[in-house]
């Protein structure tokens, strides 16, 4: 079992922004294909942590040809810090369709699965319900999908905080870059209020979801080496996507942010109301202890069962996991990836 190596590919989103697409070396050239979508502020590296048995490795060893997209919210790309500004409309309309198209061109007619985490899954939900990525073999959405819902505290922090920080620029993640005596130190400190007991400031701000509150991962589930590397795995978060997140969360359904831009006209006004456009099986995954999106995915499974009962939707809860640790955690292969492999085999 060797560590994961990537072939780096060029990819340009449909509005001309340069992204990164990575192909896992050593996957099967005949087997099914998987495209991985990371969450906002992290990157495709979240699927390839060297210190643990990671998803890219597990998929490769099980004969799946794997690609990982760095969409514009990736910390391996500069856009979170320097712009151009974007909303999740851009991701759903420009990034995900471009990546799916490129992977399809390279893999021909082989079945293509998309495995998405957090905001990646939320944006994928918008792309799917807009009919921009038809014909997928299946979708795995972790944490959240069409129905974002946070705790009341997070809602308040997100609502008020987004206003206070609107002009503050990206929220930093790496405490070493902020330093102990810079003018951003008090902001950094304020955003870690309510984080767990870990003394590491970078862990505190990521754990505290950059100030949104809740818990982005269960501390206990991370490998010590992953914990040390959090500043590499996660980057700054821009404040300009917060209004979109706030609007979708308050509505409890993924909504289009920009109603006036014709390029986004295909995106649904409410993803739940357009759910019947989804044309593939969906597996919703969530940690039983998710303290960021809580039971959003259980809710999504319920809502889709009532309102779009013809869809093939299954929900799997992962006992003892929070949010990000379902991919980064040291036992994720045992507890989480088994469900994903099972879904890929069954559909």
């Amino acid at each position, binding site marked *: 079992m060797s560590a994961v190596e990537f072939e780096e590919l060029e990819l340009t989103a449909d509005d001309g922004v340069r992204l990164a697409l990575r192909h896992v070396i050593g996957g099967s050239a005949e087997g099914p294909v998987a495209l991985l979508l990371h969450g906002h502020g992290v990157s495709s590296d979240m699927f390839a942590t060297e210190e643990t048995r990671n998803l890219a490795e597990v998929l490769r060893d099980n004969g799946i040809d794997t690609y990982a997209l760095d969409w514009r919210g990736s910390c391996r790309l500069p856009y979170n810090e320097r712009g151009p500004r974007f909303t999740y409309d851009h991701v759903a309309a420009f990034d995900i369709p471009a990546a799916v198209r490129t992977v399809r061109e390279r893999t021909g007619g082989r079945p293509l699965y998309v495995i998405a985490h957090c905001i990646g899954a939320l944006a994928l939900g918008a792309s799917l319900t807009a009919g921009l990525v038809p014909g997928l073999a299946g979708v795995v959405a972790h944490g959240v999908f069409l*129905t974002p819902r946070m705790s009341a505290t997070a809602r308040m922090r997100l609502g008020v905080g987004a*206003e206070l920080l609107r002009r503050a620029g990206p929220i930093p993640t790496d405490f070493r870059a902020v330093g102990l005596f810079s003018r951003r130190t008090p902001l950094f400190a304020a955003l870690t209020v309510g984080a767990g007991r870990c003394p590491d400031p970078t862990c505190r701000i990521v754990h505290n979801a950059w100030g949104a509150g809740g818990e982005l991962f269960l501390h206990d589930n991370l490998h010590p080496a992953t914990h040390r590397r959090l500043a590499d795995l996660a980057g700054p978060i821009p404040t300009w996507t917060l209004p979109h997140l706030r609007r979708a969360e308050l509505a409890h359904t993924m909504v289009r942010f920009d109603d006036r831009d014709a390029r986004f006209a295909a995106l649904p006004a409410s993803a739940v109301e357009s759910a019947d456009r989804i044309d593939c099986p969906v597996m919703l995954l969530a940690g039983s202890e998710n303290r960021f999106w809580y039971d959003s995915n259980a809710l999504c499974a319920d809502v889709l069962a009532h309102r779009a009962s013809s869809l093939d939707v299954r929900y799997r809860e992962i006992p003892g996991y929070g949010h990000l640790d379902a991919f980064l955690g040291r036992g994720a292969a045992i507890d989480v990836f088994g469900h994903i492999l099972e879904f890929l085999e069954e559909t």
Partner: protein
Amino acid sequence: MTEPEMTVDELLALADGTRPEPADPSGSPRVVGMDPAGIEAALIRAAGRMAARPVGSDTDLFDAGLTSAQAVELVAELEHELGSELDLGAVFADPRPSAIARAVGSPGESAGDELALVRADLRRADELPFVGPPRTDEPRCLLLTGATGFVGVHVLAELLRRSDAHVVCLARAADDAAALARIATAAKEYGVPWNTEVRRRVTAVAGDLAAPRLGLDDVRWQALAAEVDGVVSVGAEVDFVRGYRSLGGANVAGPLSLAELASVGPVPLHHVSSLGAFNQIGIEAMDEDGPLARVDRLGSGYDRSKWASDVALQRARDHGLVVTLLRPGGIGGNRSTGAHNAHDLSSAITAALTRYRTIPAFRCLNTAPVDWVARLTAAAVLDPGSWGGNYHLVGEPVTLDDLVRGLTLAGMAPTVQPWDEWRSGILERIDGVAELAFLATMLRSPSACALAQASLSVPAAGTARARELAVRHGIEPAPGFDVSAQLRTLTAMDRTGLARLPGRDSTPHVAFDETLTGAVDSRPCTIALTLSAAGMHQLLTERRLDVRGTVECDLLPGGALTVSGDLVIRPDGGVPVDAAELRHPLMEYRLAGTDGTGTDWTVVAHKTARLGRDIASQTRTATVELTSAAEAYSGTVSFAPRDYLRDGVDGLRIDPALSARERRQAKAVWFAWFGGQVGRGLLQPALRAFAELWDLRGARDDGGSRQWQRGLR
């Protein structure tokens, strides 16, 4: 060897040709005219029908594959035939047909032999070799026993997820493949992951704890000893009915064989012992490094066997072996999956509690959820710094008061009774309840009763070292047993029929009436309903009320329609029915009934929250649809504010079994919860509209932002 189907009656008659005398009125179990050899022969044949393996006169019935329940059944048949009650303790102290026959013939003679067996087992510890210290690297290959059991399979999963070690699991089976299949079955039964990622790190080895050298041949024994760099001993026979002779093989000889194996390396041995080793009525303290109970004062063979293995392995420490002793108390269900051991005493007591609402009085409960016990066990195994200590794996001690309060909120207010009263009350009520037959077995067994009674009387266990271990590994302290942490377990028990959670048919915790009037297709319509909840648990987890009532409307051909169903508050979690128009569901009535002509109808009514100043009317007005296979009508119904005050506030009914104080508390909790939920639902459209105003500030403006950032840098 197949025997024709025969009753014990026939067998006994065959065996010696006599009928037993009727029971002696003095209650003495001595049987007159009954030949022990005859009883023995009869037992062998009867047990042979039930057991998986052949039974001889010196075969332990349990080793032959009999379950406790089957064994009790066997004894019950025997009792019936003999016409007298047998002492279950005496029968199971030595469950070989020859010994049972002796015990039946002359009761009270076999009990004293147990201490001699304990002494003999302890002498085996002295024969262990003397060894030096083990290497203190993180283990790469571990031997685990008990992976087919409830605790063991949870420990297996924790070892896999917290380390990169390979785990060799010893399980009783015909061959390695069958052993692996048994572990897979246990994993599935107890909700533990079992997939390709797990299988690549697990090897199963067929063996037997009770057999010399674990039942392995020399080659395998040597290979295993050379390969593993740690031994985790979880496997044990957990049976409170059987005696020491029957349990000592797996529970004492097994761990000693593991100590022998660990001495080859030498590698550390981590043994899951039990607080049972302290389980003596009147014990003053249960400290991790303090003295255990006196073995002759332990009431059950199980506690004695756990005592003996604990003491034997403490002795092994004097030979240089590094031994970690992990002592859990009661083990509760998994907090995340609800997985539980359905045939364990605490599950049985919990199940009886949910059905009959009584609990035996206790001093404090030394328990912890299985996920936490497994997590701490794995932490101790994987951290060389913690090897060699004694750890009590119990959570915060639970007091009677904590438990009663939690149960009352869940709608299961219990009555606390002294042990004897509780036991006899439960025994009367569970007669014939199939799911609780094993509880009846235990409550009739003096050995299991002694164990249960002692564990209800002991003080809180000392947990200083376990706490320190948890803190060092960043593990949250465990709640002992609290109702909210065990809700998933209770729900799982309810699903399998073991427990009975409050439901539609039980006396409601809270109930009130509601009459909605209006028009459906321009014809007057009256919906008179009674809404109720069995407990706060149902409201908090499902936001659902049970509904019963009638629908009157002259469109209905069969006259008034009797309906039942649910009212869900904020259905679908408030996910909008029309996001663009800010319309969110507030309440949904889903009712169904059959009218006088035999037609099935569904009645669905919706209250919707929207942006507007008619907030009060949004809570009172519902659109309603009456649908049958052939017809569909729709309309609007509502109630007047004063009707709500009359029915919903003044007319609110609380479970009369609660005391006046508890009823006031329940009322306040209901209003706070209901008001909060309706308020949240109504607020949602307004909040969204307010946030839209904020968005006017211009999400794309970045001029100011650059200035501000420059200033900051």
